[in-house]
C-alpha cells in the first residue's frame, strides 16, 4: 500500500442553512467512514477556513491572500492508503465535493 493525499479544491461557496450544513457535513463523515471501514484512511485530515495568510519570498512578506481562484482553492485534505494512484483516484469518486462543483487532486506522498 502507498500513501496519497486528497486535496479538495473548489466547490461553490454557498450560504447554506445550518441544517443544510449539517447534512453536507454528515455526507462527508459517511464517506470518510466508508473509506476507513475499507482500511483506506491514514489520517482523515481537516477542513480549512477560507481565510488565511500568504508568507512569501526572501522578504517574508505576510499578506491576506491572494489565494488561488475560488475554483482552485484548497478546502481540505485527507491522507489515504491505496495500492496505486489509480485506486486512489477511483476511491475519491464518492467524495461529496463533486456535488458542489469542486474536484479532488490526488497526489502521491513523496518517499523520503
Amino acid at each position, binding site marked *: 500500500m502507498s500513501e496519497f493525499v486528497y486535496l479538495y479544491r473548489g466547490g461553490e461557496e454557498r450560504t447554506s442553512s445550518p441544517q443544510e450544513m449539517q447534512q453536507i457535513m454528515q455526507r462527508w463523515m459517511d464517506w470518510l467512514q466508508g473509506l476507513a471501514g475499507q482500511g483506506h484512511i491514514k489520517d482523515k485530515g481537516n477542513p480549512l477556513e477560507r481565510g488565511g495568510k500568504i*508568507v512569501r519570498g526572501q522578504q517574508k512578506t505576510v499578506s491576506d491572500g491572494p489565494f488561488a481562484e475560488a475554483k482552485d482553492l484548497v478546502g481540505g485534505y485527507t491522507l489515504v492508503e491505496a495500492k496505486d494512484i489509480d485506486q486512489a483516484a477511483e476511491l475519491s469518486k464518492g467524495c461529496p465535493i463533486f456535488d458542489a462543483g469542486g474536484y479532488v487532486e*490526488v497526489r502521491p506522498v513523496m518517499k523520503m
Partner: protein
Amino acid sequence: MNAFLFLYHPPEGPPLTRQQMAEVMPVWMAWMKSLDERGHLRHAGNPLARSGKIVRGKPQTVTDGPFAEAKDVINGYTLIQASDLAQAAELAKGCPMLDGGGSVEVRSIAPM
C-alpha cells in the same frame, strides 16, 4: 492553541533534483525540530510528489496532472498549532522554501 495548516508552494520552475533535495532536507528537518521544541508542531505532514491525478465532474473523469501549468502547485503540508493566525504566519517565516522564492499558505482549520 488553535490548529493551522501550512501549504507549501514551491518557486516557479522545475522541481528539485534528488541531489538538491538531499541538500535541503536537513534544513527542513531542523526547522521542523525547532517548531516541535517550541510546541508548535502538531503533525509534520508530508511532502508531495510533483505528479498525480485530477478527479472532477459528475460522472467523474480522471486525468493526469499536469501540474507544470498549474499556478498554485502545493508540494507539501504541515499541521501547526499557534495562538492565532498572526502567530502562525510568523512561524511560517522560518520555512526554508521562502529563500528560494516559494511561499507558505497559512490556513485556519475549520471546526467540525
